[in-house]
């Protein structure tokens, strides 16, 4: 009976700690599904996300969100599944999103509350960095640190590996860990397009169609 009481008290305490709304949808494109308590609910830019909300992006879709402490911005690339979780306590908003599969970009500013991304095979923890974490169908985990420093932990062995900017760490489902310099091939096309946005070519010419006396279409080109 005592244990049950403790469990009830613990649940009540946890519910107090768990923040209500934890994030804001700051960008969206393509088909993105928001699941709240198991049901799909409509969302748009400016929608507030609750603790426990789940987001799923489809092919060629993305969703961007920002935690309410303003310190963490996430971007879910296509075919990604993320569950939001955060606790608001004395140390600030502790952000604990869970990435089931797909690719997640995170920009964490130094501020209140740590950021910990949970996957099936690894845990990524940081206080200030920019990184990309990816989980494939086999639950292999890839961490690419773009700036700052992050820590990759194997939940089974509790072994932690520090990964710095310019490094890529891999932890596969068998528990094999590998750390090396980041390669261009580590990024998918949507990730590259996002990280290295190409400026749209500026038009420097104009072709004007004209019909000559014989009825042929001719083009007069203007360039500058």
């Amino acid at each position, binding site marked *: 009976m005592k244990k049950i009481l403790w469990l009830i008290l613990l649940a009540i305490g946890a519910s107090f700690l768990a923040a209500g*709304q934890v994030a804001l949808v*700051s*960008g969206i494109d393509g088909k993105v599904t928001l699941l709240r308590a198991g049901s799909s609910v409509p969302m748009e830019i400016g929608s507030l996300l609750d603790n426990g909300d789940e987001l799923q992006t489809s092919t060629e879709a993305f969703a*961007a969100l920002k935690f*309410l402490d303003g310190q963490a911005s996430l971007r879910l690339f296509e075919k990604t599944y993320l569950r939001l979780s955060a606790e608001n306590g004395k140390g600030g908003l502790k952000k604990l999103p869970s990435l089931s599969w797909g690719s997640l970009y995170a920009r964490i500013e130094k501020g209140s509350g740590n950021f910990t991304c949970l996957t099936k095979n690894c845990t990524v923890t940081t206080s200030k960095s920019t990184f990309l974490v990816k989980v494939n169908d086999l639950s292999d985990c890839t961490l690419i640190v773009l700036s700052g420093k992050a820590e990759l932990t194997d939940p089974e062995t509790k072994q932690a590996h520090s990964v710095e900017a310019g490094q890529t760490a891999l932890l596969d489902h068998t528990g094999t860990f590998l750390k090396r310099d980041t390669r261009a091939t580590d990024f998918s096309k949507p990730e590259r397009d996002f990280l290295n946005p190409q400026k749209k070519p500026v038009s420097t010419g104009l072709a004007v169609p004209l019909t000559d006396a014989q009825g042929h279409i001719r083009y007069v080109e203007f360039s500058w």
Partner: protein
Amino acid sequence: MKHVFSLVCLLFCGALLSGIVALHDAPLSYTEGENVVLSLDIQDGLDTIQNITLCYKSSDDADFRRSGLEPQTPGSNLYAVELTGRELDGKDFSYYFEYALKDGQLIKYPNEEQGGQLYELRDQAQTGKLAEEFILLTDDPDFPQQDSYILAVSYLGLAGRIDPASVKLWINGKDVTSKAKITENALVYRNDRPKAGTYKAVVTALTNKGENLKSPTFETKVTTTKQGSAIDLGGQVYFLSNFYKHNQPGVYDPYGYEFPRDGYATGLDMAVKYGRSQISANLLLSSRENKNRQPVDRYHIGLEIPSISFHAGDYAPSISPLVMSGKNIRGLYGKLNGQYMGLELACGEMVRKTLKNASGTNITAFRQEAIGGRFRLGLENGLSLGVNFARNRDLISSLDPEDFIHYDPVTADTLFSVAPQDNLVLSVDARINIPWLRTTLGAEFAGSLLNRNTWYGPISAADLGNYIEDYGVLDFEPAELAEMFVIGRPMEPLSPSKNACAAQAYLRANILNNLINVNAGFTGPAFNALSTSSQLRDTQTFSVTDMFNLGRSFFISGGYSQVRDNYSKTALQTDTYSTWHLQSSLRLLKILNLKAAYFSSNAKNEANPELAGADDYLPYQRNSRALTLGIGYNAANIDYIPYQADISYRVGKDSNDLETSYGNYDNSLSSITFSLASKMKKFPLRVQMALSIAGHEARLETIDPENSYNLNLQIKGTYTLFAGKFVPRLVYRTQRLSGDQGKQAYNYWIMGLEANPWRNVSLSTDLGTRNYTNAENTSLNTNSLTWSLSLTQKF
């Protein structure tokens, strides 16, 4: 530095204008939904004031709204006007006071046209303690803010410390809380059809301890690609009326101040904005309009586009203070305002033709046409030179000769009950604006001609030669100039002289927190400018004022002015009237106010040694001094006991310091004024009370001292119903006087209602009784009933 300059003007200001010294303790901010009382303490010049109007506008208003100030108690030098919470609507306002003097002058203070900065009144909710825990989330590039405006603000860091129900969102000064989604940790506001521009947002909230918190101002630039309607239409339609019933028609004087007549007025103010252009229209129709008197009705339509202004109908142009200013013209006005040059022209009817009636309430007047203009060369914000002119002409054809000419039955001389006049004024002015020194220097020199009777037409060249020695040099035919000005014998002056000139120079500077204003000028005895308010002719004037502030807590202002007549040295004596004043205010702990003011005036005369027999004048030297001390507090969070209270004590002397044959006098005056306001937390009752008791002792050497007193008391209660939609009020006012006319008393009971039943509709009505009793002469006792109604629909 600009803020400091603003603060000087905004927070505390003493006005020295045409003999009026007024103290206005600007409240700066107000609590949304609550009424705001703006008051003016007239330290000197009360007897010259006809009425005072508050002119105020928010950024949404095209034109200034107007509301009359009333004496807090009858005869009081404390004037006040109350703006309702509904009227304020959580917006930021700028305002000034307009003094209508008994001599017809209209004076604005502060006057923007003369470089003054208007007072400001902001919603207190937006003036809380800055809290950095309010975080803007929509500052990422992911938020394009194009064709829509999304604002998300988090206050997660304040969770548990603030009441989410108290969170409010203000965008561009407007409360848009109802349109925002507010949760315990954040709010989101979305406008899918915004106008392009910069949006300034502020979030406010109350902590559990009642402290007001506010966010930093979040600015967002929104662009639009949609071709929406950029036309912004706004305005109001209003109806005002007053009805009176008196129990003693025999005593009733329909034109007496004490017995106003029934009347109503209705009007429309409208403005259409399109980009930087604006068209405005104003219409006022009054039951007091009488075609045989000067117009009360007003018609106006105006167009303002960058660099060009055009107005038709009733308009009061400000061409120059010495040439044309502050008088209404019914006609046309246009202004081209280029960077290096500008041109202004105004023409129309300044005086309407009227005929005397049998009762003598109307007078005969010619229709007077006025034309004025100004040409400016140079930069308005740098060095500029201007040439100004105005001509006023009474049209002889507007009246039948029988209406203004009659003949002396004995001598058969032609007599004029009113004579047609021509007036011509020319002036040149120069102005230097030095922005980096925050200093403006300017001067104007003007000369005038006035023909007091143009009935006789222009003088012949031969006759003119008899009057002017150098006429041969000029060699012109006066009749040829008659279209411009009728030169005739009744001219003032016939030949140009310094007596027909006027000049003024001014300096305005803001140096080391000192707002300095210096004015000097003279007006010759024959200077006439009919397109301006009355001039103090044959005088020299000088005034200097300074206002200084130290942060937001300490303000001090002082000034000296002198008016000296007999500028032409043609009178036996020269009168000099000089005043100086010093006022200061100290704010402690944000709620406590201490204020002190000292005012002194001196009037004296002296003989003109240039004239024989000057010793025959009767010398005098009158001094008047008054000291005011006050203390008060204003703490909006206090309930039940008064949240605002002020007490001030005034003591003064009025004496003749020169030995004279008719004896000296030495009067003393003391008064105490007490005001308080309180509100109840549990129910929306507000009570205001003002009490002033003044004693006056008149001492003449030859007569026993006479004591008199007056007591003024006003108690006002308001009760807010249906979230401020209906606010009934009850007012009791009494004034008791004693003195050489015996004991008198005025008692007032007023029941009123302020209602805002629908959005943009407001109604105000009062039903009041006035009871006057005179202990010495009971036949003068009267009762009267007044009903006033005001209905306004904004759009």
